[in-house]
């Protein structure tokens, strides 16, 4: 019997790997961001396959929505040419080969370690998603301190970014005077 679940999984995995490579290899940065968006959507689909619907929703809203649009805005603010091509020299071939060898050796080491371990796989379907209620109840009971820490980090990053940009502006004003 053909396992529909495995076929879905393989299609999604191929989509994720191709879009991850294209996000780094596409010549034009705008296309690279579109491929990155495709990658995040693929990861969200993988979460749906594993019955993690709520996390998939956040993944699509935050990554595929907000982060991709923010990166796109940064590209629009910093690009110089009309076509969006980067005026950046790509790495030399020697650098590329060395990086490839390093990345592949790290991957090979991890693959060897992972293949030695006996990973538990559920025999039937994945467990019930338990609903979003279990996640949010757990956040406000067992994980209150990390949750507050995350909120502080988010607030600090926002305030810090605004402060950095304002400092730039005030420097310019002083220089012009």
């Amino acid at each position, binding site marked *: 019997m053909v396992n529909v679940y495995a076929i879905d*999984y393989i299609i999604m995995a191929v989509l994720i790997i191709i879009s991850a490579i294209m996000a780094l290899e596409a010549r034009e940065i705008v296309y690279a961001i579109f491929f990155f968006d495709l990658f995040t959507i693929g990861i969200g689909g993988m979460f749906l396959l594993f019955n993690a619907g709520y996390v998939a929703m956040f993944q699509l809203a935050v990554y595929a929505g907000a982060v991709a649009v923010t990166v796109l805005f*940064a590209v629009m603010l910093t690009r110089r040419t009309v076509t969006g091509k980067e005026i950046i020299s790509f790495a030399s071939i020697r650098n590329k080969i060395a990086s490839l060898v390093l990345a592949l050796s790290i*991957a090979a080491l991890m693959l060897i370690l992972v293949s030695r371990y006996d*990973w538990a796989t559920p025999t039937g379907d994945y467990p019930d998603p338990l609903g979003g209620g*279990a996640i949010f109840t757990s956040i406000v009971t067992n994980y209150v301190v990390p949750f507050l820490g995350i909120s502080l980090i988010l607030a600090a990053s926002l305030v810090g970014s605004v402060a950095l940009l304002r400092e730039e502006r005030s420097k310019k004003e002083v220089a012009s005077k």
Partner: protein
Amino acid sequence: MTAVPTEWTVYLSIIILSIGLYGIFTRRSMIRILLGVELILGAATLNFIVFSMSVLNGDVVGHILTLFVIALAAAETIIGLILLIMLYKDVGSIDISLASDVKAEEQDEEQDEDKLTRGEKEDG
């Protein structure tokens, strides 16, 4: 409907991790480096979810950690892009190798100032 083996997802996330590492090592554009970091974070969240659903048999701890990672990644992207815009304003390019020149210039200025103050002392 049967679950796919857990190793498949671990292998997949190792592949994504090595692609992200390769991107970080070879690219000079700051945006590409940020995309590489996001790829690595995506691989990590994928692992959290699959361990939560198969190894821990449906415990929500992996889901919660994934939510935290997503929030942290959003904050990291904001800071990275602000640094990118500041680099662009200073240097006029988003090439990360130019960022070291900025530091060198500042050191040169400091050395010049040192020389000036020394010269003043010698004159005095």
